[in-house]
């Protein structure tokens, strides 16, 4: 099989799940005739028809509400946000209604809400968001943020089959930049499991999505200076795979968390607290954070570059940490 992009991996996951299970449907803005703003659903309408690939008005709350209602009759809707920034428009529908159903009244909502997220492509402040932390604080969701085409496909399939509402963030910077050969047979990647992308003994870098690749780049540079960094890709943010993080830090005794989300209230703070609770005696230095500036995502390339972490800033923080 020829290697495929991240985009194609997403498309394949939806295509294969819809072909295998008639209860899977896709609903969103321009997902049908146009095939999605990023063409992630290209060809689905032709194959599966109007009843299963549903173009909607520009009404994010109605998309989520309808997807939830459909799931109550046993369907497994995939709801697309054209850009994940617009998930803010249906915040109430998601947090107050969808996420609470199972806990409050025994009504699971097996829906997947997916869409392109993240900065680095000069999308400006309303097309570049990393909104994961708005929802990480809401019990009831699972939150997935893959970094490779293989994971994107396997995790999306697992998300569709999961009985809980899953928020599936697709970093648009990775959409066309990565290519990977995928297995020809059906596979899934389990939710809630992180993976060690690079083994090392001097310090642990925890990251996810696009920043995982930047972290790997920094790790290569660190290796040239004799610092072997272990890089963990979280893959799922909720539930968080605490065990993999703690195990790694017990070995390396140092931890740096890197994310594209803004620093204050980002997941690095949460991971830092977990390490203080569960690995305090193993830590040889502070848990450091490399994250975006606490500002909206600016538009101009010079400003956006200054906003985002990069391999250089990660390298610098890791060097500081290695000195402990």
């Amino acid at each position, binding site marked *: 099989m020829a290697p495929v992009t991240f985009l194609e991996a997403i498309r394949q996951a939806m295509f294969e799940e819809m072909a295998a299970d008639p209860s899977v449907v896709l609903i969103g803005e321009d997902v049908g005739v146009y095939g999605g703003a990023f063409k992630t659903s290209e060809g689905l309408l032709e194959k599966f028809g109007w009843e299963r690939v549903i173009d909607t*008005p520009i009404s994010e709350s109605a998309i989520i509400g309808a997807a939830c209602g459909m799931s109550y009759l046993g369907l497994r809707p995939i709801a697309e946000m054209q850009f994940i920034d617009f998930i803010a428009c249906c915040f109430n529908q998601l947090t107050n209604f969808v996420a609470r159903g199972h806990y409050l009244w025994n009504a*699971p909502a097996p829906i997947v809400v997916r869409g392109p997220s993240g900065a680095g492509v000069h999308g400006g402040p309303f097309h570049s968001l990393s909104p994961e932390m708005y929802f990480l604080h809401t019990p009831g969701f699972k939150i997935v943020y893959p970094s490779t085409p293989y994971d994107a496909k396997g995790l999306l399939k697992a998300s569709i089959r999961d009985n809980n509402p899953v928020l599936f963030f697709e970093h648009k910077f990775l959409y066309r930049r990565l290519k990977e050969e995928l297995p020809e047979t059906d596979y899934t990647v389990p939710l809630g499991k992180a993976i060690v992308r690079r083994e090392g003994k001097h310090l642990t870098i925890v990251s996810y999505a696009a920043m995982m690749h930047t972290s790997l780049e920094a790790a290569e540079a660190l290796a040239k200076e004799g610092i072997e960094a272990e890089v963990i890709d979280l893959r799922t943010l909720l539930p968080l795979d605490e065990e993999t993080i703690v195990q790694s830090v017990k070995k390396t005794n140092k931890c740096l968390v890197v994310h594209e989300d803004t620093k204050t209230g980002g997941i690095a703070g949460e991971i830092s607290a977990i390490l203080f609770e569960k690995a305090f005696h193993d830590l040889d230095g502070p848990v450091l954070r490399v994250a975006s500036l606490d500002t909206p995502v600016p538009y101009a390339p010079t400003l956006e570059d200054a906003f985002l972490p990069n391999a250089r800033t990660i390298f610098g923080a890791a060097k500081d940490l290695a000195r402990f």
Partner: protein
Amino acid sequence: MAPMIRNIGALLVKGVPPRDIFTQHMAKYTSPTKGKDGTSHFGDLENLHIVSPISMLGDLIPVLTGVAMAGRYLGQKIVSMTWIGDGGSSTGVFHEGLNLAASQRAAFVLILENNQWAYSTPVRRQVPIENLADRAKAYGIASYIVDGNDVVAMYSTAKEAVDRARSGGGPILIEAKTFRRRGHAQHDPAEYVPPAQREYWEKRDPIALYEKFLISEKMLDARGKKEIEDRINSVLEKEREFAENSPMPPPEFAAQGVYCTGDECHKIRPNWERPIEEVMPPKSSVEPVWTVEGFGSGKSASRENAPIHFGDTQPSVEKPAAAPLAKLAAKPSVRKSAPAKSTARGKARR
């Protein structure tokens, strides 16, 4: 069906035992939510097909639209129904939900209880229109206005709307004119309500009016009334006792149930009432069954506005409008708008 907190009557009619309402209010472990939520915030998807309401108004409208869409997809002949108040009709999701329902021609009935007050704000200071049913025109859907305190009118209107929606007529909005006789909740003495208004509506107690109707139609007499009341009282007494003697939930229960753990927790399987082959390739590539005929004719839904000229579309040949509701037109307490005929589903013109 998804009743709101003021629709306990709908719950009881649908078959919810009174003990569920008592135990919910008392936060007992025997309640439908086992103490995790109160009031009528509970549902029963499996048996009674009831979706739980939440406190945020309007959210149920797209959800029940989705229920109707899924029902059609699965080949089930269902109609979904929910309620909203005059207050809730000002939310954004009211518009988003009704517009999606209209564009999908969903078999969905929305009952808008116009009880004159959103907490302390009278309806005239919420909206600049007399009849909230007029909103339906903007969505190209049919509507009714009905005396919400007239049980018979309410029933026959709802019945007709449900039948109409079931036969593919698209969503229907029913505005029921009524009155909130007490405050917003127990703490609210509702002193802001003008005495004259209260007096007017107190004389129109729907239960008293219905009793009067039944007696005048010789369907009920004093003895029959007493029998019914005794039976209800005795049932309620037992149910109240059950609720009072029920335990509170154990504290450790608070940490349980955030996630569905899989098949052993919930088997999520749709109930197909059509051949699955119809929705699977190669047969699935079919035209939508809910396309509105005559779209692009240049006429508005109500046919009152100036014709719309798109320039690049040819006006289609107009078909005579069907009059499906002629028989109810004689009923004085019900007013109907013209059924929606076109423009409910549009080609993209942004």
